[in-house]
């Protein structure tokens, strides 16, 4: 899948809705925290990591598997863009 130009957040959000059973009218905002909102458990994060690695063709190292990089759509977008070199040093949050 060519997702270079696609919105990373949209792709990940679709994955979450496709892969996980979401009850009722769950909405995932860009800054919804997966862990705190019980959207993902520890196995869920492993599935998410596998999806990100395959889809965006990045290798996530052990020390990068932290909430700061993966706990919301916004964090994932920033993380993936940093990994792909899309963000300049100044933009790294």
């Amino acid at each position, binding site marked *: 899948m060519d997702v270079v130009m696609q919105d990373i957040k949209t792709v990940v959000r679709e994955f979450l809705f496709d892969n996980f059973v979401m009850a009722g009218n769950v909405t995932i905002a860009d800054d919804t925290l997966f*862990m705190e909102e*019980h959207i993902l*458990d*520890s*196995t869920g*994060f*492993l*599935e998410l*990591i*596998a999806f990100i690695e395959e889809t965006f063709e990045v290798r996530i190292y*052990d*020390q990068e*598997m*932290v*909430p700061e990089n*993966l706990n919301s759509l916004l964090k994932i977008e920033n993380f993936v863009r940093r990994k792909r070199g899309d963000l300049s040093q100044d933009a790294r949050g």
Partner: protein
Amino acid sequence: MSRSQLHPGILAVDCEAETRRIAQWMTEIVGCKLRRRGVVIAMSGGIDSSVCAALAVRTFGASKVYALMLPERESSSNSLAGATRVAEQFGISYSVEDIAPTLEALGCYHWRDQAIRAVFPEYGPDWKSKIVIAGGHEGSFNYFKLVVQSPTGESHEARLPVREYLQVVAATNFKQRVRKTIEYFHADRLNYAVIGTPNRLEYDQGFFVKNGDGSADLKPIAHLYKTQVYALARYLGIPEEICNAVPTTDTYSLQQSQDEFYFALPYDKMDVALWAFNHGVPAEDTASYLGMTPAQASFVYKDVVAKRQAAHYLHATPELVEPVADPDLTRCQEFQCAAKRS
């Protein structure tokens, strides 16, 4: 409300009183509630099952306790020796049943090795393996690493991708589930109840297999921290070599301690951390008491919460669409009496 503080006595236990309390409780549960004639217990040679067996003998007498040793291909020979020694010391009847042929027939080893070979293609029959937990106590998400050792002793380690991780665990869970099937065979045969042997750390944090070692009719030490189980073991006269052994899972072919498999810390520190968390002790105080940084203690607290959430599924009983009343024994008896009168 005064804040709970950590001190060396937090896990102290009055062994005599606690033994009496558990014995009274087991008598009521097995005799009155479950209406069974005795108990079956699988003995691993570890501290928890040894203590449960000794408690069962104190409660029911050795003649009403039946022990099972259920080794498989990858069990340590020390486990069987330890379990046998405890059973004989307490006069418990037992049988040893090798579950390896059953596991082989079910595909336990095949499925597990297939997943391992997806990560290490050179992995073969003479190799050894284990999985170790990582991440949680360092602030990362929990994940597992696969460690393999070649016949020449060379070790290799790699992070387990999620599919392979799930397959290794699912295949390995056959071991605990087959054991439980055999325990219930003997329990049915003897009209006995099955004792489950988790301590508080294991029960709280989900260190068990659903419908495997997590299944039982009663769990006499699930309220006790591991430190307290050791105290009880010494009080009950469990052999020193069992009291002094490092707790292992005895599930993988490479030696694997429980803390490297599942817990963030060795059991004695984990006990203190869990007690502190349960009593609202701030992470900074726990850090200072255990000689770690506040950040590390905070990660351990978060890990306790994450594992408790994961354990929710393991503890869950089957869900029903709507509440269905438990069979009301009183009403059943009334109905039977009425039926006889009519």
